[in-house]
């Protein structure tokens, strides 16, 4: 009892040391940047992505030709007029290369937004409510994940037909199971937190608890996943277009520009037609993957350096 009496004396204001608030929110943001910046390649990747995005947005202002304009030379080697030569139809290769960045970025971002939204909502519901809702949603993801991804995409693409919008929709609608599983797993651990239980005791609706309390706490893994998802979607679009089931000429896409290399003449004697688009795909996908890796590292709560 004497132990307590010591504290009885004054009014029980918070007598604990109040000095030095550890870290404000601005600080945690600078902390994030500091960790991110340690990855030199990721910073470089961010710059590359930025430049490519600007090129894609301002494509009409920086290209000398329209991507569909047929010029006077056919399959010509690089020259002063056509820095990267022209294709067999006579279109300027550099202009097409720049315009194609639009396709890749649109597919990458568009499809991942769709699958992230579907996957996040299903994952949140599945993880939060559990029970039979969870079983149904998880069996559904099992089913979707049992199809080899590319095969399913090819089949659906052959049914709904090719085209940019369709590709975005297909990749988006078929890409959610991974997100759903990831979100569900994170929700399962997040909902064990007492703040979620406190929300229920305080009479908050399930919707408020899920979207206002749980979701902000599972955003980091979704962001990391989505980053690698963008890279994956860009590769998938390229493969689909390469196989002739994706974006159709005359709309330029790096994938369908590479498809021309399936002809032996192009492959052997016109490397300017297929090497640049291939390198562009590697450049953007590599940049995004570097950024994704740095994000994973910088957002890791275990990492406090």
């Amino acid at each position, binding site marked *: 009892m004497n132990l307590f009496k010591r504290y009885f004396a004054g009014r029980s204001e918070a007598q*604990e040391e*109040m000095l030095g608030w550890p870290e404000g929110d601005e600080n945690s943001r600078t902390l994030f940047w500091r960790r991110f910046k340690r990855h030199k390649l990721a910073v470089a990747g961010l710059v590359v992505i930025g430049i490519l995005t600007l090129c894609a947005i301002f494509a009409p202002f920086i290209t000398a030709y329209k991507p569909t304009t047929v010029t006077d030379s056919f399959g010509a080697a690089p020259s002063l007029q056509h820095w990267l030569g022209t294709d067999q139809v006579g279109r300027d290769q550099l202009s097409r290369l720049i315009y194609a960045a639009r396709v890749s970025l649109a597919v990458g971002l568009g499809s991942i937004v769709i699958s992230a939204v579907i996957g996040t909502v299903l994952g949140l519901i599945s993880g939060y409510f559990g029970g039979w809702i969870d079983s149904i949603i998880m069996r559904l993801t099992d089913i979707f994940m049992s199809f080899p991804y590319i095969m399913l995409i090819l089949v659906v693409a052959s049914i709904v037909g090719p085209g940019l919008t369709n590709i975005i929709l297909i990749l988006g609608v078929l890409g959610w199971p991974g997100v759903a599983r990831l979100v569900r797993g994170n929700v399962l651990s997040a909902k064990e937190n007492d703040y979620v*239980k406190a929300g229920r005791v305080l009479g908050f609706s399930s919707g408020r608890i899920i979207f206002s309390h749980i979701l902000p706490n599972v955003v980091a893994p979704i962001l990391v996943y989505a980053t690698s998802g963008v890279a994956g979607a860009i590769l998938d679009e390229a493969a689909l277009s390469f196989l002739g089931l994706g974006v159709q000429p005359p709309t330029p896409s790096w994938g369908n520009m590479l498809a021309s290399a399936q002809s032996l003449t192009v492959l052997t004697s016109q490397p300017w037609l297929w090497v640049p688009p291939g390198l562009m795909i590697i450049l953007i996908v590599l940049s995004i993957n570097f950024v994704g890796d740095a994000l994973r590292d910088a957002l890791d709560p275990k990492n406090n350096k």
Partner: protein
Amino acid sequence: MHNPKDPAVPLQPLLALENLKKYYPVRKGIINHTVDHVKAVDGVDLTIYPGETLGLVGESGSGKSTIAKLIVGLETPTEGRILFDGQDISRLSPREMIGLRSELQIVFQDPYSSLNPRKRVGDLLAEPLKVHRIMPAKDISREVDRLLELVGLPKNSRGRYPHEFSGGQRQRVGIARALSLKPRLVVCDEPVSALDVSIQAQILNLLKELQRELGLTYLFIAHGLGAVKYVSDRIAVMYSGKIVETGKVDEIFREPKHEYTRTLLDASPIADPRQRNKRRAFHSH
């Protein structure tokens, strides 16, 4: 039972648990059939009177936390009734429960897990007020200040995030949040066992002060007798899902009837030398 404050007036209990049971199924085998039950709470009767603090003591796994969850509606009982102010609240739908939310609140054990790390303290305290539309929006800010003052936190706490606070300060935020809806009964689920010993006393004092000022009723859960003894009027001892003994604090300490209570008494340090002597005397009999 009579009013603990004034023995002459018989009193209606604020909360009464009647034959409360909570069984968790144990599933096994290929088709997941239920083979057995874990009887977390196995036929508990308990009454809490307005204005008193009932200490509920038991080791971990004894079912005391399950009782807390049952009372505040985080779990549904397998059997039995939970009467709040005479009304059975054990099987209310979430919608029916909303009105009662303000009456029954809980303070959690772990102040690190009980505050959403992504929300500022001010928002944490304002949210229940907004959701239940307790007051016009313009008054909410002042109410948040009042709540912070009530639990002894500086006003500038409202713009800060939980991770900027120490464990004890966080627990004050948790208490302020529980009080934001002006509850009559607060379930304190081991509110100090995650804190440093020196800070435990501050939080216990705060709880006692708040009880005096606001006329609160507490169900105070703990695994040892130390803190419970300090804050409680009566004590209930729980052992493997059942209440084995109930009584006033000094009765329990003077004449523990159940063997398990005696074990608990032996385990808890006694700060008061007179008490210690008494216990020695008791044991030497």
